[in-house]
């Protein structure tokens, strides 16, 4: 007989792949990438345009998907927990099945037009794909953690929006303000710390370091490049992103194991 985890993954996957929102998300990204290639030019130019979409859209979609995935399945999770299943098993089965399509859709939706139009610069596709997968994983896990912490669905959605807003909009404003207001002080280490604290900026900097697009690196990216150089900088950013993947997943798992349904 197949393992329980596999059974749960398959079941959740089937549910996710029939969701209109998942199809809309994947189809939308695919169409956008194809249009950017058609009208945008080289692979480097398309990556820069797509990067903004990935940095803004992917975490938001993943956060909302995580929140709604759990809050709309609360009663079903109750039913599943009444079966001979360990909580940990149910968490990994549910989260794995939910997150897998979310993780795979951006690389597929970007990869298919890339294969057709670009036919090269695979390292850029790999970086963008890995970046989108990491942001999807972090967003989905954080969304699940929020939904488990706050039972009121609207409240959990509000917290998820706030988190996304802080990472994508407020953070940029803060870095800009810090760069101008504290320009006479040695703030490089502070900027590096700020970079490590924001997975969205880490993905942005790691991708742009591959492109050698110094003008687009911004304060934090320039600080990382000066501190560590391009290659070590990418490795440091990747290490920090790996930690970022573990943290929300651990919080979500802990919330699930302790949750009173």
């Amino acid at each position, binding site marked *: 007989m197949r393992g329980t985890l596999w059974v*749960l993954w398959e079941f959740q996957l*089937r549910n996710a792949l*029939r969701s209109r929102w998942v199809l809309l998300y994947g189809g939308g990204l695919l169409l956008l990438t194809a249009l950017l290639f058609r009208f945008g030019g080289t692979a480097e130019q398309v990556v820069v345009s797509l990067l903004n979409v990935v940095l803004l859209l992917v975490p938001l979609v993943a956060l909302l998907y995580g929140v709604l995935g759990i809050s709309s399945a609360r009663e079903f999770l109750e*039913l599943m927990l*009444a079966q*001979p299943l*360990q909580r940990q098993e149910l968490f990994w089965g549910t989260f794995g099945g939910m997150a897998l399509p979310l993780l795979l859709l951006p690389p597929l939706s970007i990869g298919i037009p890339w294969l057709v139009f670009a036919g090269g610069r695979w390292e850029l596709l790999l970086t963008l794909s890995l970046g989108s997968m990491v942001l999807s994983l972090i967003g989905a896990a954080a969304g699940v953690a929020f939904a488990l912490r706050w039972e009121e669905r609207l409240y959990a959605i509000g917290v998820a929006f706030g988190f996304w807003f802080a990472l994508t909009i407020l953070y940029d404003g803060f870095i800009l303000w810090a760069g101008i207001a504290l320009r006479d002080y040695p703030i490089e280490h502070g900027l590096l710390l700020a970079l490590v604290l924001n997975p969205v900026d880490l993905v942005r900097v790691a991708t742009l370091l591959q492109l050698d697009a110094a003008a687009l690196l911004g304060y934090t990216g320039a600080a990382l490049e000066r501190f560590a150089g391009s290659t070590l900088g990418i490795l440091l950013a990747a290490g920090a992103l790996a930690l970022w993947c573990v943290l929300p997943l651990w919080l979500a798992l802990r919330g699930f194991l302790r949750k009173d349904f």
Partner: protein
Amino acid sequence: MIELTNVTKRFGATEVLRGISLSIAPGSALAILGPNASGKTTLLKCMLGLTRPDSGEIRINGTPIGASAEYRRWIGYMPQHPHFPENLRAAEVIELVKQIRGLSAPVEAPYIEQFRLTSELHKPIRALSGGTRQKLSAVLALMSSPTILILDEPTAGLDPLAAHTLKTELQHCRQRGCTLVLTTHVLNDIPELVTEVVFLLEGRIVFRESVPQLFAESNSRHFSEALVHRLQRS
């Protein structure tokens, strides 16, 4: 055998269960009654391990329930509000529960027929009515021939025919020696389904009494009157 010893549960400032001790013998049929927010559903969820008590112990057939999830193999559960993933079909949900429980034979077939679910099996869950979802929930609870059935408002939302079918199936289960624990606000169902009643109020057991005794004490033919009579004495 279900044994609860001094079980307490608090949600924030609200103490939902206050030192509940209860022993339910194998083969018995017990209804947990009480007003809204008296702790009925929380008590059932504690038995299933969905909610963890703050203190006290729960044993099912001698096994403390925190140790493993295996004891749930003996239990069939009908939640108060059954919800299933909207994009799947009823047949897929049945298949999932069968695979988790390691059931391969078509154990669900007689129940699907009894509840007249055949034509609904391959429709997406989102297209099913509340009553049909409740019937599906009944099939899921019954199909593994559990030795313990825990049912939270089992007849709520069912049409009279389906409610009758469910009550008949529950009586068959009882004849097989199955233990039945349920909550309900449909007091007319009580004499048909159970032999004992526990009344909860603000997380405490007010009384536990057999149904025939309740009738005998009140000289009434209606269960609701017998219950009110008993409550006035408490």
